[in-house]
């Protein structure tokens, strides 16, 4: 037991490296918040564009969504981080992480929003159009509000899963929680920072997971 406490809950190590990990939490929250905003908005915009049903545009959107759904995020991150500087585009690790995760979330949320839009009956479109609303007005005031409501549970789950990928930033040197914990672990020769880092993630994400559960029951109702 002593050995366990010494290895995982060493007070001296906690005292020395806790500030680093707290700082890592700030970075994780920053990336996560930025990814959620740009990713979900991007997905919503793409789904809205897709509902105009312009063929070449839709083909491009489907291609984008398929590719970003099929590729592991870490693969895209490595290509962007190590590849782009070689063609003269130097992005910081933070920017690469934000950009890649946003694109992945946009791809997934586009699919979810599009499913929501498709599940709204045709009569809703026809009724709205016949009251004199334009196509864009119908989409914005009639279709999307209903569609988005239906997509809340799957969207929340997906968003949580993709936001947790911020830990991949450790691979490209973004100073988020995992990176800080690993650095502290190798400096201190002690596993305490790894445990503290895991606890930091739990502290951040348990509330989100709980809210997700609540949303799932709150919005669980029959299709329109």
């Amino acid at each position, binding site marked *: 037991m002593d*050995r*366990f406490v010494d*290895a*995982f809950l060493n007070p001296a190590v906690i005292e020395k490296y806790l500030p680093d990990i707290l700082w890592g939490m700030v970075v994780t929250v920053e990336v996560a918040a930025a990814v959620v905003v740009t990713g979900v908005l991007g997905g919503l915009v793409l789904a809205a564009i897709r509902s105009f049903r312009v063929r070449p545009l839709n083909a491009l959107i*489907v291609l984008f*969504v*398929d*590719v970003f*759904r*099929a*590729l*592991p*995020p*870490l*693969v*895209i991150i*490595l*290509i962007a981080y*190590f*590849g782009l500087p*070689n*063609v*003269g585009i130097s992005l910081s690790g933070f920017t690469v992480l934000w950009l890649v995760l946003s694109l992945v979330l946009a791809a997934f949320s586009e*699919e979810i929003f*599009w*499913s929501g839009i*498709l*599940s709204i*009956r*045709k009569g809703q479109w026809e009724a709205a159009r016949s009251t004199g609303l334009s196509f864009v007005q119908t989409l914005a005031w009639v279709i999307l509000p209903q569609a988005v409501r239906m997509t809340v549970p799957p969207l929340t789950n997906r968003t*949580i*899963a993709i936001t*947790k*990928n*911020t*830990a*991949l930033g*450790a*691979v490209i040197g973004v100073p988020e*929680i*995992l990176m800080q*914990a*690993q650095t502290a*672990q190798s400096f201190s020769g*002690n*596993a305490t920072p*790894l*445990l503290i*880092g*895991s606890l930091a*993630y*739990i502290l*951040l*994400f*348990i509330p*989100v*997971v*709980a809210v997700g*559960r609540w949303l799932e029951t709150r919005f669980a109702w029959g*299709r329109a």
Partner: protein
Amino acid sequence: MELFVDQFLNLEIMRQAFPLLLRGLGMTLLLCLAVVPLGLVGGLAVALICRSRWRAVRWPAYALIDFFRAVPPLVLLIFIYAGLPFVGIRPSPFVAVCVAFLLNTSSYYGEIYRAGIDSIGRGQWEAARSTGLNVFQTLAWVIVPQAVRNVLPDLISNTVEVVKLTSIASVVAMPELLYAADMARSLTYNPSPIVLAAAIYLALLWPCVRLLSRMEHKVAR
């Protein structure tokens, strides 16, 4: 444009890296063969435990699910691989990956099975039991087959996620596809091998993603 092709689509480098990547692909497939069944079985166990009659069993199970859903899989993996040796447990990369995936993916599969089992009406239980089947027979022959069919898209979607997730094994020096590609990249100073790895992942997973997309949009009227 020429620079772009030379850096990202360098056929010469891709050709050289290809055998290495193929070996990596073999390891990725082997990993999938280990972690997908582990997750599928673990998830079913989790789902059944969550339906237990006793609160003392149900609540810890829920707590564990939420716990493992809140910790990023990479953090879990590094904790197991780099943390446990400090108390004398030294898992090989393969074992570390299997344990991390079992803990992580069982929670996700468990939630999916749970939704599936919930979708089966009580009448099915009662009818099956009244024909003389016991609880386990009812589960195995009546409930689970229907439940699985109801949540098949979610099961496939999660499996695609698990296959993609095996790429994080590269971080603990497991010589799978991405690890091989990244090694080739650092040897050649050229990211083309990773692009080739991406193409292999695409070839593997694109058909599944297409299929899923169709299943998900089937409700369209």
